[in-house]
């Protein structure tokens, strides 16, 4: 086995890739081949620059790919949640209560559980690496099918170095009402993380899902960059429903690239919220295709960034069939020197008559040094369509602030209420109270930490 020192030195380079291949010797041949193809592709694809429209506001100059280890040292599995200790345990304890839990610690899946009833009904829920071995037919069929490596430089990087992630299969007509929960926890400074999420919902299946990604940097790891490049692929058959909430809370030395896509067929219903709080850079590509009649998609997002954090979201909702309904709603808050970009696009293809779709993004700037850009686009090729967009950038309303203060609420608390209240409309878009509450708490904690760090307020 490769030693930690070797991998640390190798970086996301040819040597690093060779080290990973060695580390993962014994994985299915098709996966190893897919890795190799992705690595070749990665090397061919140019690094995005600010001349590329979707990367115009993203600063990659500080990213040192050669300093990032292709995987982290193995820690070992745990057999029960009570065996967890330290920060991983505290994270798990924050909830929400779940019908199944998967924990990935750095590069490896360390714990998995699933409610026995769901297992009997045929639900499959396990770490991605195990699924690749044990559910090869399904994984091979769907892996990389809607988010192929060709989608971009960092997507190719993901497929080359993929390790960890989740696999979920819900058979026809089965309902997963209590959420399944996936936690990715990173505490290996300098490591790259490449989790892959693959979710397959068969006809009329339904799912409530919570995904959390977080890191705690040991003091000794200060100054080392981490990189996460993840992908998610969600396949929804006719009549399937998903309530999906993800919470990203990496430390501010992590560069986070996500590339996620859902395909919903007839009458599929998607309520999908992405909450981004952490990361030095968060670059997200979040897409949904509605390919069948009567599909619905709520594509929701929120972010709260401060310090020198950067967030850049590109989201695309494509209506490919008639009578579909869509709604993109993003709300973000930037404080200090934070910068955000939002590029939302709705495409209504010729076939998608009698579709209605809305695109809105609203940003609140809490400091005069914070910046935000928004580019909403609608492309409508069908007739008989209702499609609208709206975008606003503002600050905390002085009148709202005065009103709350006039009732005895101190300014810091009043500001917090207004900022947290700003997100409520988005949170309410995923009708799952426990998940809403979990994200609400994460926002609250981040806001309070920031206030404690800012004695001037």
């Amino acid at each position, binding site marked *: 086995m490769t030693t930690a020192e070797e991998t640390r030195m190798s970086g996301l380079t040819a040597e690093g890739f060779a080290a990973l291949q060695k580390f993962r010797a014994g994985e299915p041949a098709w996966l190893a081949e897919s890795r190799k193809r992705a690595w070749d592709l990665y090397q061919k694809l140019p690094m995005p620059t600010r001349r590329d429209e979707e990367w115009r506001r993203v600063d990659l100059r500080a990213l040192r790919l050669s300093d990032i280890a292709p995987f982290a040292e193995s820690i070992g599995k745990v057999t029960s949640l009570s065996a967890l200790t330290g920060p991983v345990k505290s994270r798990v304890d924050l909830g929400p209560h779940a019908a199944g839990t998967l924990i990935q610690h750095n590069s490896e899946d360390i714990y998995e559980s699933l409610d026995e009833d769901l297992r009997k009904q045929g639900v499959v829920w396990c770490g991605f690496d195990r699924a690749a071995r044990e559910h090869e037919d399904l994984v091979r069929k769907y892996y990389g099918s809607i988010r192929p490596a060709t989608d971009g430089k960092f997507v190719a990087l993901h497929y080359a170095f993929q390790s960890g992630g989740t696999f979920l299969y819900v058979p026809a007509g089965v309902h997963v009402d209590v959420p399944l929960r996936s936690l990715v926890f990173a505490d290996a400074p300098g490591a790259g993380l490449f989790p892959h999420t693959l979710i397959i919902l068969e006809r009329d299946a339904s799912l409530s899902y919570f995904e959390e990604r977080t890191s705690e940097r040991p003091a000794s790891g200060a100054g080392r960059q981490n990189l996460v490049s993840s992908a998610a692929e969600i396949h929804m058959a006719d009549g399937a429903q998903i309530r999906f909430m993800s919470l990203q809370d990496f430390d501010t030395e992590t560069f986070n690239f996500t590339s996620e896509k859902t395909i919903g067929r007839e009458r599929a219903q998607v309520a999908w919220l992405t909450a981004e709080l952490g990361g030095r850079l968060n670059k997200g590509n979040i897409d949904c295709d509605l390919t069948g009649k009567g599909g619905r998609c709520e594509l929701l997002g929120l972010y709260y960034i401060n310090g020198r954090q950067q967030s850049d979201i590109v989201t695309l909702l494509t209506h490919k069939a008639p009578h579909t309904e869509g709604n993109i709603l993003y709300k973000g808050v930037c404080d200090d020197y934070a910068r955000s970009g939002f590029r939302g696009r709705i495409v209504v293809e010729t076939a998608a008559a009698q579709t209605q779709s809305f695109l809105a993004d609203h940003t609140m700037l809490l400091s005069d040094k914070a910046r935000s850009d928004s580019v909403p686009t609608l492309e409508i090729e069908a007739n008989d369509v209702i499609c609208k967009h709206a975008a606003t950038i503002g600050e905390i*309303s*002085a*009148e*709202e602030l*005065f*009103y*709350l*203060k*006039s*009732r*005895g*609420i*101190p*300014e*810091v*608390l*009043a500001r*917090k*209420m*207004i900022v*947290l*209240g*700003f*997100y*409520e*409309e988005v949170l309410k878009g995923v009708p799952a109270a426990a998940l809403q*509450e979990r994200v*609400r*708490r994460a926002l*609250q904690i981040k806001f*309070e930490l920031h206030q404690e760090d800012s004695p001037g307020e």
Partner: protein
Amino acid sequence: MATLEIEDLHVSVEGKEIIKGISLQVSKNEVHALMGPNGSGKSTLSFALAGHPKYTITSGKVLFKGEDLLAMPPDERARAGLFLAFQYPAAVPGVTVGNFLRTAVNAKRAGGKVLKAITGKDAEAAGKNGNQISAREFLKILKENMRTLSLKEDFAFRYLNDGFSGGEKKRVEILQMAVLKPELAILDETDSGLDIDAMKTVAEGVNRLVGPSMGALVITHYQRLLNYIRPQIVHVLMEGKLVTSGGPDFAQELEARGYDWIRQKFGIATPVAAA
């Protein structure tokens, strides 16, 4: 000592003097009405007392329960027991009436210290934390008060003033007053935009509170509210000054005769343009 003592107060907005020397004392158990034509400075006075940053006090003194009110930030004024019912209360999307008011009550109980508690489990824990009121306990108090103001229970969970009708906003202002139990309430045109039933409900709400623990300064353009909230004294504000005062029936006289005779009697110039 009166609860509120205003002494020769001058207030400017964007460099223009609007209040040009007002002195007024209001005590608990008392209702004072402040009437005057549009642009006379009624709302300026109420905002200045509440501490709105747009209003600059250029001279004068205001004591609240003997303390210097003007030295306090707006939230401290409120916690000390001053309440302003806004003519046009702001909407705060995402913040429910219940959460907002509980936070206000707890802020008062905490003496303005910022405690980390506003939602969910935190709010429940707050009940076990010293003198903070828990979400459950508070909801009970809130619902009782909502009933007396004919507000449906779901208002507790609606976003503050967001999409409320004019009448609902005014009722919710009075609800806040009932829950926060101020020692002195300033009601700024609380009657505007209310139909007669809503006005009665609001007036009853005020009347229930005025007494040994609260006094009120009722600002109004019309006399009709004063049929339901009976003031002991009616003051007339014109051109930034209190020009005259009368007993409870003075309001009716003003309604009947208008303000021009007062202008003539006290030698006040007719404004060139309406404010």
